[in-house]
């Protein structure tokens, strides 16, 4: 089926603009990290790996990165059981007050991020939990929970309820059914949800800014503080590390689940 030329042109022009806008910062940051000069510039002044050497030696950047990984791991580990159960519950069962639950569980979206962050900051402060890493993981999980539930319920929605009845018919007790029928069916949703949670927590900026201090600083906050202070290209090099993580996550997502899952209708 041939699409009319005008339609193709309009679509491709707009898509082209979006592609440029989306990829430009990535390319620039990548390029600027290889400069042999002292000032951040694109196109880079000569080619050198000196800035990568510098950040490899920077203990504080390494520590911040490790902390970011820890936060992201804690967030994902909490999110998987909680989000999976909630997502399955919402899509498979008839619940009274369903709309209320939906709105309640969308609260992390409706409450602006700064509001959530400050609320958690005050709450954790009162409970004396600030100054450690794991509360940040919990906070990241709370604010991104809707993503996990969304991903799981999208998968669970396409699960045929008859399958579970069939399993029960064959004599499977409830937990076995859950483990052997339900869970594998929602696995794509769980995987894509957890990868999403991991990356979101890794990149979480505003809530980390509010909850961390010098002893617990995570990498995005470290970069932000440095952007406002040091103007050397090692920031570009460290950003490339983020880009690498993102690329890794995307490859994983694609290998395990297939990126197309996000296109599926509900």
């Amino acid at each position: 089926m041939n699409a009319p030329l005008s339609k193709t042109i309009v679509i491709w022009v707009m898509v082209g603009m979006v592609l440029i806008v989306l990829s430009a910062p990535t390319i620039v940051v990548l390029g600027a990290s290889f400069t042999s000069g002292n000032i951040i510039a694109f196109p880079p002044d000569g080619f050198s790996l000196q800035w990568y050497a510098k950040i490899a030696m920077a203990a504080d950047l390494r520590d911040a990165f490790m902390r970011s990984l820890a936060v992201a791991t804690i967030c994902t580990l909490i999110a998987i059981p909680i989000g999976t159960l909630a997502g399955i519950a919402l899509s498979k069962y008839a619940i009274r007050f369903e709309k209320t639950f939906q709105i309640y569980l969308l609260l992390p979206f409706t409450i602006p991020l700064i509001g959530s962050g400050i609320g958690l900051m005050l709450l954790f402060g009162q409970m004396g939990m600030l100054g450690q890493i794991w509360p940040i993981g919990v906070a990241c999980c709370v604010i991104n929970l809707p993503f996990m539930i969304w991903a799981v319920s999208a998968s669970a929605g396409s699960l045929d309820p008859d399958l579970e009845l069939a399993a029960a018919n064959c004599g499977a007790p409830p937990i076995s059914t859950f483990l052997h029928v339900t869970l594998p069916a929602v696995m794509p949703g769980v995987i894509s949800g957890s990868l999403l949670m991991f990356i979101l927590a890794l990149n979480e900026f505003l809530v980390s800014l509010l909850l961390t201090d010098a002893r617990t600083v995570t990498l995005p906050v470290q970069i932000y503080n440095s952007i406002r202070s040091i103007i050397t290209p090692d920031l570009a090099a460290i950003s490339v590390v983020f880009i690498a993580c993102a690329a890794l996550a995307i490859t994983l997502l694609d290998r395990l689940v297939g990126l197309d899952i996000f296109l599926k209708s509900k």
Partner: protein
Amino acid sequence: MPASKQAYPFRWRVMDAVENMASALWPSRFSRGLPYLMLLPAVLLVLLLVIGMIQIAESSAHTLDRSTFLPSEDHTWANYSQIFSTGLYWTVLWRSLLGSAIVTALCLVFAFPYSYLMVRTSSPLLRKFLLIALFLPFFIGQVVRAYGWLIILGNQGVANGLLGLVGIEPVRLLYNYPAVLFGLVQYMLPFAVLMLAPALTAIPEELESAANSLGASWWRTFTHIVLPLAKPGLVGAGLVVLTLSLTDFAMPAILGGGSQDFIANAIYDQFFRTSDQGMGAALTLILVGIGSLAVGLVFTLFGAGTLAMGRDRK
């Protein structure tokens, strides 16, 4: 055949024990309550946010004593009255609302062809390429991307370099309102596309070819068939972009040059520049109110669209 112990695998024994425990804890009489049990952990987790909001409300009732720099002992509405009487906050509020409306409109316009192409294309390679191009910036994070734009749009950056080729003097492209809006649009585009795509997938391609065969131009097909059917996607995307850009912190802070504060920046300032926790909390509560109002409005008018979790009882 003799029933030896070996015949009954260990795994099955474990499962039997687990099932027995489960039915002891949650007998089948309660099976109707099972979904509520499954929802409980999530509800408790989100409860943290609710308690946080209550803390904010409590904090907003205290003003800052300038002689001891401690919050006042008594409860007062003084913070709120000061907010409503200070011109600065109205300016910031208006700027944020207008900005988020513009950003939402622009995002919807540009995200639509991208999602459309991504969903409709017959080449899996192109689809994968578009998906990767979408996810890569999504996974990189705000700060790094804003940093990239600082380099590109600076006085000696690529953009001004290109303008220079045509003979135009370096233009101040950063640290103004359009720069912040641009930054927000480029940050929100992946969100918008992700919200639109499921809705577009749900529109059968045959509908468009049917309209085509009946003589409709592609533009008419678009406005009369595709657009109305994509409504849930537009609603979901619009909602997400609206609330996220209204409350964004990083873009106005990094690209705005200090003169383009949005509400989140004003709140941050109160907490971390003047150390006035009460005022900051009051501003936060007002922002939460406005945000919830907007979301509630859209929900009641249009439903949750593709943002809905759970079953769609349409």
